């Protein structure tokens, strides 16, 4: 038997790790009721912290203190319906709960064995109430190999990770495999870098292993800058040890003893959880000197980013790790040969690192069964924007866009019509309805003029203006361009001016052609991928939604009624009861109340088109066109 108190004690061999795992599992009763609460950033924004505290308090009050466990975990993915709670062992799924619901959940579902009907998820298609988590369509159609453990473990407890077999793969790698065998396994698995470019992971590792130099670095890129993507954040928050385990295995394969995690400072919870994970791993001897008694040393430190999108680019990230500004450099010499401090450096994305333990544990064959010919495994997407079931989803590569948006995402809310889905962030593009049958993988999305990027998937409906979206991305990139190379710095600015002009009704014949011309200059002449791909959002919107550009340019009209300079608000008199809500909401006193039950009057000369009246009117009496 292992001693009772194990934390604080080094684990010196694989057998000690195994004994620890068994002792943790033995102490836990899988049938003991457990309230599992999602406390990822999304659910926290919806009030999850209050709910966790209220559960703990209520359970104590109802005298269940030692009979029921409460576990606060990372992101479960179904952010739209947060805060989420799962009652184990049955996995009863309650959604959108507030602290007022808790006494009822405790007395009904924990003291007694009843279901609280009103908190169940109802399938919008059929209206049927769904009791168990696994039956919810949002989850049912996913393959959650990376995200699945998020719902099982408390990310601040290393024992939780060890109890589900955590770090046993590290033991296997260090004691039963040579570095070359690990690289071979990664090669056979077909794993491609999940940061966006999809470069074969094994090739990077191999080149870095063979590069000259005694000191080498491994780096985890968690500078998730793509707006609309948050999967890296959720992995670091919800299962930080899986990322660490992957990094240690990779470091052993490459021959590195020093690692860095570069994470956005905008993700405070992720920074905290990965910090706790590192401390706990050091305490157990899973990080630091002589890991698990193998003789292999490896240490990791955290660097917090400064909020620059360009730092997601590997050379810019490395410059920033050196304490310099985040400017990329030309990659005549690859970073695997000369990267951080001019030494061989291997950089991979969070999701890539987290995939490594799975591949080494279950084997390349298991992994490569999932996915398409060219892209193996699964991908995590953040399905957001104008879609019913927003959240994080994980599906095998090759799943079609339609399956993702309609079967998992539940389609477009409010009976609106789908217009496009934007993938790949500011480097990606907009994909129209005709291409929804596309199976998603690195190559297919590139062929469609977009890219995988880090997995953002923003759904747009008929109320989204595609010219405005192109302008949005260009404005974003103009701000984020580091300014080092001319095509990117000046080209994006010029394209932004043209696009802004078009959205303001100042577009003229020939603008589209100039945009296409400049796009070519950017693609051919920029130093890093921020510039070379910057035109993708414009090129894809021109390709698929040229009619919208032309409506803006020729008719000075915004078909989606988004571009402020081209729209007008008006009152639909038949529908307006003169309630005065819009009068209060209007910041410029452009609306006046005439009399009770009389429609209000909108003075166009005072209207700044802020849309406050449109938002506040529940009767649809404000028109926008």
């Amino acid at each position, binding site marked *: 038997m292992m001693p009772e108190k194990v934390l604080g004690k080094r684990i010196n061999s694989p057998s000690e790790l195994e004994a620890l795992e068994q002792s943790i599992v033995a102490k836990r009763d899988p049938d003991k009721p457990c309230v599992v609460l999602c406390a990822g950033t999304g659910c926290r924004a919806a009030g999850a912290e209050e709910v966790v505290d209220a559960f703990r308090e209520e359970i104590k009050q109802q005298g269940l203190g030692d009979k029921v466990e409460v576990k606060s975990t990372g992101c479960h993915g179904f952010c739209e319906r947060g805060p989420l709670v799962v009652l184990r062992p049955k996995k009863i799924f309650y959604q959108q709960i507030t602290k007022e619901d808790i006494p009822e959940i405790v007395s009904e579902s924990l003291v007694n064995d009843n279901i609280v009907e009103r908190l169940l998820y109802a399938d919008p298609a059929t209206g049927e109430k769904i009791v168990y988590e696994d039956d919810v369509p949002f989850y049912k159609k996913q393959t959650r190999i990376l995200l699945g453990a998020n719902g099982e473990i408390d990310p601040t407890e290393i024992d939780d990770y060890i109890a589900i077999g955590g770090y046993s793969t590290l033991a296997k790698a260090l004691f039963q495999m040579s570095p070359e065998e690990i690289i071979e396994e990664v090669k056979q698995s077909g794993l491609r870098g999940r940061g966006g470019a999809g470069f074969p992971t094994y090739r990077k590792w191999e080149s870095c292993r063979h590069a000259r130099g005694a000191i080498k670095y491994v780096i985890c890129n968690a500078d998730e800058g793509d707006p609309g993507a948050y999967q890296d954040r959720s992995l670091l928050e919800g299962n930080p040890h899986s990322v660490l385990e992957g990094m240690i295995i990779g470091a052993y394969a490459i021959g590195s003893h020093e690692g860095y995690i570069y994470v956005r400072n905008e993700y405070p919870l992720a920074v905290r959880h990965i910090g706790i994970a590192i401390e706990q791993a050091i305490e157990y001897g899973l990080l630091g000197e002589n890991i698990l008694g193998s003789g292999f040393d490896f240490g990791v430190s955290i660097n917090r980013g400064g909020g620059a999108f360009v730092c997601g680019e590997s050379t810019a990230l490395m410059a920033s790790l050196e*304490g310099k*500004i985040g400017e990329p450099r030309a990659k005549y010499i690859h970073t695997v040969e000369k990267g951080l401090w001019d030494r061989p450096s291997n950089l991979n994305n969070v999701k890539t690192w987290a995939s490594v333990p799975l591949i080494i544990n279950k084997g390349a064959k298991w992994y490569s069964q999932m996915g398409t010919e060219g892209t193996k495994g699964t991908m995590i997407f953040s399905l957001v924007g104008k879609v019913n079931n927003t959240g*994080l989803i994980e599906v095998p590569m090759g799943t079609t866009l339609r399956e993702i948006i309609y079967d998992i995402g539940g389609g477009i809310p409010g009976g609106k019509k789908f217009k496009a889905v934007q993938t790949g962030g500011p480097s990606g593009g907009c994909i129209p309805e005709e291409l929804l049958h596309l199976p998603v993988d690195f190559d297919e999305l590139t062929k469609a003029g977009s890219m995988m990027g880090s997995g953002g998937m923003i759904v747009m409906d008929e109320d989204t203006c595609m010219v405005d979206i192109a302008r*949005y991305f260009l404005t974003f990139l103009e701000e984020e361009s580091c300014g080092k190379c001319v095509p990117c710095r000046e080209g994006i600015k010029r394209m932004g001016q043209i696009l802004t002009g078009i959205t303001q009704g100042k577009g003229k014949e020939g603008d589209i052609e100039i945009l296409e011309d400049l796009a070519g200059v950017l693609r051919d002449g920029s130093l890093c991928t921020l510039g070379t791909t910057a035109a993708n959002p414009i090129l894809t919107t021109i390709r698929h939604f040229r009619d919208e550009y032309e409506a803006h340019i020729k008719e000075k009209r915004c078909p989606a009624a988004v571009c402020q300079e081209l729209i007008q608000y008006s009152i639909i008199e038949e529908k307006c009861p003169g309630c005065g809500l819009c009068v209060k909401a209007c910041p410029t006193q452009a609306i006046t109340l005439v009399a009770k039950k009389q429609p209000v009057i909108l003075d166009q000369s005072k209207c700044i088109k802020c849309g406050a009246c449109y938002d506040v009117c529940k009767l649809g009496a404000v028109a926008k066109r």
Partner: protein
Amino acid sequence: MNIDLAKIDSIIEPYKGRQGLLISLLQDIQAECNYLPEEALVEVSQALELPLSQVFSVATFFKAFSLEPRGRHLIMVCLGTACHVRGGERLAQKLERDLGIKPGETTQDFEFTLEAVNCLGCCALGPVVVIDGKYESKVDSAKLDSILKRYQSEANKG
């Protein structure tokens, strides 16, 4: 504004000589002072043995840093793509109107600083506004009014 140099020295101490951690150090100083005072940057350059010009270049390159004192409450409005398609930009415009400042600026009474940020990673709940670290989800103009009122009345009381 008074700057506690002893406090800044104690923040810098563990970073001495570790040039690679410049950004993290600046973040810690900003977390304490709520901006980067010039005196602190001079201290940093000495402690890390870096030219002051490099410290300034980093402090001005990255969006997260401010060389000007910021307000008591920091309002971040998310302009990520998911928030944009759900009306984030209009919230930013409303905040500009209501507070009378542009993103990156601070109100004259030093109560509020407004920042526009590119994605806070809760895209499913957009549009998102964060005030002093508290996330407000699915914000519309009415909700924004009530949030602002809460902070403004607090300011009047205190």
